[in-house]
């Protein structure tokens, strides 16, 4: 973590909470949690509402689909922490880690629906080029995604476009697989609130 305040500048009460989480999960608190718990009034608390609604609010996409979108956007943004964190949640949600790995390594051949594939293609262009055109949206609609599903995918993209930048700029520490599995279990059970 590049700023010491994000690592160790939390209030006494928050430090107690971190010690508690560490004892229960047997894993150190990850940097994503440290970020949103630092001066939560400024960013963490209001942003958690956005992320929870995007990832767990009502949607025609499953939780696994949205976690895969999060991991996929993170891959385009080259954010190792978020790829691994949300790849792990997607794998758990689907009950199929190989599907997630396939989608992240080769979108065109992965065993996912055409509407999800077309949505991920559009998100990839948006994140790479910072914009998309009406023709890109028509392609997603033609593949079977509804307008509401596209809006839901854009909500996921907004959440992770923001988070990826912060994770990369502040250089989140990337734990081993056990750390991400513990995090995935928590995020699947509790969401982002």
């Amino acid at each position, binding site marked *: 973590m590049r700023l010491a305040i994000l690592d160790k500048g939390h209030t006494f009460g928050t430090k107690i909470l971190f010690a508690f989480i560490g004892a229960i999960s047997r894993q150190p608190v990850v940097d994503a949690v440290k970020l949103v718990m630092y001066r939560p009034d400024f960013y963490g608390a209001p942003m958690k509402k956005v992320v929870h609604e995007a990832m767990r609010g009502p949607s025609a996409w499953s939780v696994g689909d949205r976690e895969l979108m999060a991991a996929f956007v993170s891959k385009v943004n080259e954010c190792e922490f978020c790829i691994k964190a949300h790849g792990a949640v997607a794998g758990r949600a689907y009950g199929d880690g190989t599907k997630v790995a396939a989608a992240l390594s080769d979108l065109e051949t992965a065993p996912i629906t055409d509407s999800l594939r077309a949505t991920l293609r559009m998100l990839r262009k948006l994140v790479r080029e910072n914009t998309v055109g009406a023709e890109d949206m028509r392609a997603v609609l033609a593949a079977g995604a509804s307008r509401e599903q596209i809006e839901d995918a854009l909500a996921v993209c907004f959440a992770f*476009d923001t988070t990826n930048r912060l994770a990369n700029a502040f250089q989140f520490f990337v734990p081993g697989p056990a750390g991400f599995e513990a995090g995935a279990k928590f995020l699947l059970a509790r969401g982002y609130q």
Partner: protein
Amino acid sequence: MANIRQARQAVIARILEGEGTTSRAERRGAFDAAGLPEPLSTLVEKVAKHAHDVTDDDIAAARASGLSEDQVFEIVVCAAVGQATRQYDAAFAALDAATKGS
């Protein structure tokens, strides 16, 4: 459908209009990725366009220019939310154009 409209506006209003250790003008400049002096302009540009290229030196340069860690935190948050917002708005405009009249 998931509805992030109000929650997203609340984030933007808080970081740009609420209390902070940086001025509202500095936070707006970071959000817009425009109008900030060096070395902040380089840091903000990197966060917006290729955040994986941010280095320890970029952060150190911002600190050496007189900013506290809290101020760097606020500037980076505003830069990240600003770029994500521009992408989101561009995508919505494209979606509106694609579904116009349907």
